[in-house]
């Protein structure tokens, strides 16, 4: 039998490959990301203020729903992010499992709470939006039900990660779970959508139909981009903290503390 296990290959001369390889080193990753996280927060803040101004103040009231439709500017980007983050968590999980890269494990695990938070926001805002539209705070419509199942998937990943003691083993298990969930996600999504039409007939669409006026669409797109910056900034911040915790006894952390670069 031939079983050969060796650690990382030597980096080739290609600049992009070298960059990616360097990112795999915790101290380098820590230093590099530290430089532009403040910019990410800044862009997020600017875009959010601008988007919310356009959406909450400038956009005209909806013909059907009046002022209450404005909650869409928080609900829809949150829902989009909840799914985007799960997909990116699954992709990172796959990379972490196959190549056993610790930083990718950390990024994947740090994504989970952010995604879960967005899912909660989507559920809460969806529920608030439903009150004026349906008369009750909760209706088992396709989208809310899907978001709820997504929340359970997130909680499962986070729960598994916290239940296993050894951190790398926990991360690997949770990454595998995220991957399995990602494969199932489209199936769950379609079956719930279809379950909804099966039992209730067509439900009221939260976005009020397919024709959206441009003045209503712009704020939505701006908010959609803004939350991505939020995700990036929050994710990198969490990942850096996690790396510090994990490498507490290693030299580079001592250096960071000593040079007050935290």
């Amino acid at each position: 039998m031939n079983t050969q296990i060796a650690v990382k290959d030597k980096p080739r001369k290609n600049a992009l490959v070298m960059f990616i390889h360097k990112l795999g080193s915790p101290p380098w990753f820590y230093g590099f990301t530290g430089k532009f996280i403040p910019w990410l927060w800044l862009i997020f803040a600017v875009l959010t203020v601008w988007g919310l101004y356009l959406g909450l103040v400038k956009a005209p009231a909806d013909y059907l729903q009046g002022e209450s439709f404005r909650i869409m500017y928080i609900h829809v980007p949150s829902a989009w992010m909840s799914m985007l983050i799960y997909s990116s968590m699954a992709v990172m999980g796959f990379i972490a499992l196959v190549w056993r890269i610790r930083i990718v494990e950390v990024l994947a695990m740090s994504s989970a709470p952010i995604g879960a938070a967005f899912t909660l926001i989507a559920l809460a805002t969806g529920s608030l939006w439903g009150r004026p539209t349906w008369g009750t705070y909760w209706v088992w419509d396709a989208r809310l039900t899907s978001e709820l199942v997504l929340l359970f998937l997130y909680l499962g990943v986070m729960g598994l990660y916290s239940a296993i003691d050894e951190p790398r083993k926990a991360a690997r298990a949770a990454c595998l779970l995220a991957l399995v969930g990602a494969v199932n996600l489209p199936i769950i999504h379609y079956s719930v959508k279809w379950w909804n039409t099966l039992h209730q007939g067509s439900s009221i669409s939260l976005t009020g139909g397919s024709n959206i006026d441009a003045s209503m669409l712009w704020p939505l797109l701006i908010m959609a981009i803004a939350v991505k910056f939020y995700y990036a900034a929050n994710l990198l911040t969490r990942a850096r903290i996690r790396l510090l915790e994990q490498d507490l006894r290693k030299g580079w952390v001592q250096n960071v503390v000593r040079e007050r670069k935290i």
Partner: protein
Amino acid sequence: MNPEYTAGSLSDAFVALVRRDLLLAFRRRTELLFPVIFLLVVISLFPLGIGPSPQLLARIAPGVIWIAALLATVISLDALFRSDFEDGTLEQFVISGHPLTLIALAKIATHWLVAGLPIVLLSPLLALWMNLPLDSLSVMVVTLALGTPILSLIGSIGVGLTISLKRGGQLLSLLVFPLYVPILIIATAAVMAASDGLPYTQFLGLLIAGLITSVTLAPFAAAAALKISLS
């Protein structure tokens, strides 16, 4: 890890494992009754909790029976890998050179025979208790026959991930129930369509597709989960 020439025939290993697991289940045959009793108890709670109105029971019968099947499966799943994990047999399987994927498949198959098949066989009685219309009884049995193996297959991934935890069973439900949602939806849709005299074969087709997909993919994921749990 062993080279091919010292590892014996894979089909022999598969058969040996199935026989051993069936023999072990037989030696503990009283324990096989626990999920069955659980199923009966849970179903009987519904008329007790909701009232025995035959029309009401008939309306909720497909969902109730299927949910009870889900619960019974999850309860029985822990036994799937626990014994082999705890006594070191699983490590021997990993070292043996036989692909862990097929070993997982063998164990899931015996698990279904021992824990899932009784659910299928018991379903006519459950249908009777829940006043399920007779014309949909055969569809109910078929959905369970197709669906319970899928439950075992997908559930095995969850078991593989939680097997190293002492209280893994509690977390297992959280992990596995969201993945069960599509099966629940499709299976109950089939039975309800049959009750209403509507076409239902497309739902059975979906279940068959689901079964084929799970048989090919789930054991691989379960094996990966087990390797992580062993580390």
